[in-house]
């Protein structure tokens, strides 16, 4: 008899991607073979997202597609949309199981107990970090290891459905983080990207004076690591120590992602964000002053209920004035059971579209200027993938995607690259020399994967 097959589709953030990978290993440990999502499978898992209305829509689309193309499969829906709206998903014809966030690592058991009735399984969201039962195997041919160190959030931003889906903030212990990081480094990963729902709150629940800065320092000291990168950190969580760590440690990437959401004080207050535009401004300026060429990104939301033209102008003026290097722009969509959903009429769609377009243009412009400044500089690039035969792409530590000539043997290695060409869409350069900060762990299978 052939082995049972399972396919995955992930909607949403890096955390979801990380958790889908972990889930994949849980299934593989049970003897399943993983197949691509468009191929027939015995079990189809859709890991959903509910951060915006569009994520809900996309999630439902993927569920319907799975049911259509795999009428005989057990279709399993999990993730944040499943946690928050299980009944809506269970009513889609063909869905077998709807499994909330806390129960998802039990999926193989739940699949074997499925009895043909659309069944919802929600476990209480845990108060302490839940380790995945999967083996720590090597994961696909990647270069940057996303490492989940935290889950949940104790803030109560008015627009946010994710904290409802994820529960209280809880941190992973150093023992568990270290074990997974070492495993990833032994498997050949060079860069560790810390992920969580609210990374800045890391350690608060562990009670042993652990914090994000300490975690970053300990990870950067592990043998074999080339880089440690932060993902999004809330502005009020960026401490002096953290700035110092990023400014001074050669292996910690000069890269901050700081959600702003709005540059208008009254809007921030209604959003229940715990900082004001002045705090944000001084934080970003201080980062730019102390960390030369630091990559600094921001999330911005347009069209929050009651956002006036004046509010929007304040946001745009603030963004223009700040040394940000890229923007992620979102259009507000009301999420059920959130405070903002009760805050009166939405900003008309055409207004939201126009505001969003204006900020996207601004972001492009800022990013272009940042990359122009890099022209002529020599930056360290960790090559990840082959964009075309003989042409590699990778990230600089300050978050510029750079292309240069190279062979697939150069993947997953760090090179000094002199930036010589910046266009709207691309940044290109020439390799000068490889960086040997530590002995490079070789990974012969990387090239075979590239050929295969």
């Amino acid at each position: 008899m052939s082995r049972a097959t399972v396919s995955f589709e992930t909607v949403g953030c890096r955390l979801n991607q990380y958790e889908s990978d972990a889930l994949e290993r849980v299934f593989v440990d049970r003897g399943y073979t993983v197949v691509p999502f468009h191929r027939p499978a015995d079990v189809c898992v859709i890991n959903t997202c509910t951060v915006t209305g569009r994520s809900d829509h996309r999630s439902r689309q993927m569920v319907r597609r799975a049911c259509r193309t795999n009428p005989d499969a057990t279709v399993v829906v999990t993730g944040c949309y499943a946690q928050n709206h299980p009944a809506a998903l269970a009513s889609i014809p063909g869905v077998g199981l709807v499994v909330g966030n806390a129960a998802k690592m039990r999926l193989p058991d739940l699949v074997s107990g499925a009895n043909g009735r659309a069944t919802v399984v929600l476990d209480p969201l845990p108060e302490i970090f839940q380790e995945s039962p999967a083996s720590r195997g090597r994961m696909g041919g990647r270069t940057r290891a996303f490492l989940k160190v935290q889950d949940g959030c104790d803030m109560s931003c008015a627009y946010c459905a994710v904290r409802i889906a994820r529960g209280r903030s809880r941190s992973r212990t150093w023992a568990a983080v270290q074990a997974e990081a070492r495993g990833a480094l032994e498997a050949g990963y060079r860069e560790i990207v810390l992920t969580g729902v609210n990374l800045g709150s890391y350690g608060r629940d562990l009670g042993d004076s652990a914090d994000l800065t300490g975690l970053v320092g300990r990870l950067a000291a592990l043998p074999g690591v080339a880089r440690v990168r932060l993902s999004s950190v809330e502005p009020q969580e960026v401490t002096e120590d953290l700035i110092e760590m990023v400014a001074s440690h050669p292996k910690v990437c000069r890269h901050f992602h700081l959600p702003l959401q709005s540059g208008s004080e009254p809007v921030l207050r209604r959003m229940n964000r715990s900082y004001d535009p002045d705090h944000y401004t001084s934080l970003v300026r201080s980062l730019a002053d102390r960390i030369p060429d630091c990559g600094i990104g921001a999330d911005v939301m347009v069209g929050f209920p009651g956002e006036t033209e004046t509010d929007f102008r304040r946001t745009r003026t603030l963004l223009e004035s700040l040394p940000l290097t890229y923007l992620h722009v979102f259009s507000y969509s009301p999420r059920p059971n959130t405070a903002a959903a009760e805050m009166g009429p939405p900003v008309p769609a055409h207004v939201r579209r126009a505001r969003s377009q204006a900020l996207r243009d601004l972001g492009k412009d800022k990013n272009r200027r940042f990359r122009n400044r890099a022209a002529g500089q020599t930056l360290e690039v960790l090559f990840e993938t082959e964009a075309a035969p003989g042409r590699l792409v990778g990230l600089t530590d300050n978050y510029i995607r750079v292309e240069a000539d190279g062979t697939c043997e150069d993947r997953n290695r760090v090179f000094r690259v002199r930036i010589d060409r910046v266009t709207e869409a691309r940044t290109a350069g020439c390799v000068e020399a490889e960086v040997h900060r530590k002995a490079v762990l070789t990974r012969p299978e990387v090239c075979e994967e590239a050929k295969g």
Partner: protein
Amino acid sequence: MCPPRSFFIETLGCQMNVYDSELLRRRFQSYGFRPAPSADRADVILVNACSIRKRAEARAWARLSQYAGLKGDNGHPLVVLCGCVASRVVKGLGEGEVSGVDVVAGCGSYDHLVAILDAQLGVRRGPNGPLVLADSPTATYHEMPAAGEAPLRAFVSISRGCDSHCAYCVVPSARGPHRSRPLRQIIDEVAALATGGTQEVTLLGQNVNIYRDGAAGFCEVLRAVNEIPSIARIRFTSPHPRDMTGEVLRTMAACERVCEHLHLPLQSGSDPVLEAMGRGYTTSDYRGVVDEARRILPGVAISTDLMVGFPGETDDRFEASLRFVEEMAFDAAFTFKYSPRPGTAASRLPGQVPEEVKGARLERLLRVQNRATDASNRRLVGQRADVLVEGLDRRKPSLLTGRTRTNRLVSFEGPDSLVGTLQTVRIESVGRWIAFGRRVEEGAAGGGERP
């Protein structure tokens, strides 16, 4: 805005179901639902059903089909099955027709049940059949707000599920593995009830003796609840004879609010039957616990559960059981005929006992136990007892009625204003189920609050 929605809960079965219905009622109200005066006027009808015996489950299915008949063309109202029967349906062990049911909600789904029902109102049922909410093995479904006026006597769960696997019992398959509720939450809930006016709490667990939250065991629960002001009485159910310790008995003695009442389910007084049931103790172990309880807790009332006709209960074994029950001289007992339940080990055992034999044995057992109950009652005459006044006597509204610390029902004369207070009553006469007495006035010879 939308008109107020209403709910109706019908509860069948044990204290745990009664407690869960109360939690669900609170949750419905926190979602803005109002209690409906009757099922036919509700938007959501919830049947919290029991599957401990065949007859109990059959009754649940009959109610569901009756409620499904109330549905109009628009599918309104929503009919929801919950309780142990639902948990067994989730596992494919149900013994009825789910086609008229909109939602099947296992016990371990109550944390989010009302949120889901709230979202489901007005949604037409899809082709996937009833929405099935599976039990979570980790849910303790108790984080529901206790607010406002509370009853004089209230239940509070300290754990969920059961790790014993008694051969006859559906509870482990229906309620999942044992998990203790955090002590902090128990204290918070009792304190909230006390603020709302509750004076007596009954701590509920399938096996209270294996309670554990970090370093705290069941004794710590008793001690912590004993510290909560304005709770006058603490009871619990059930302990397991196998796990009962002298330490618990000594803690009961040391905590002045814990009542001298022990409900200690024996099930059978025949050692081979106890072994086949998988109870984990012998009659001699059980006798040891009872002797110790009577020594440590003078005046303790001991009640029990007894089952006749378990597979393999021969005439000799039944006679032995009867003798043991007589020897134990229980103050009260709940007696049952064994009922085979699908999916349990006992339902597949050889030596099933014919129905008429079970009936005859039950009658004999009742006669023996009634003698013991009467003897226990007669010992009360002439004694003083503290009575928590619950209300007016249902049969004679001129009388007040309440319970002693040993859980005996007492009626006496007094003004309505005494309802909700503790009174000292001298017992003058006894019937099998109720005692009659006269109130001892405050300040009269030795009329204290508590012993």
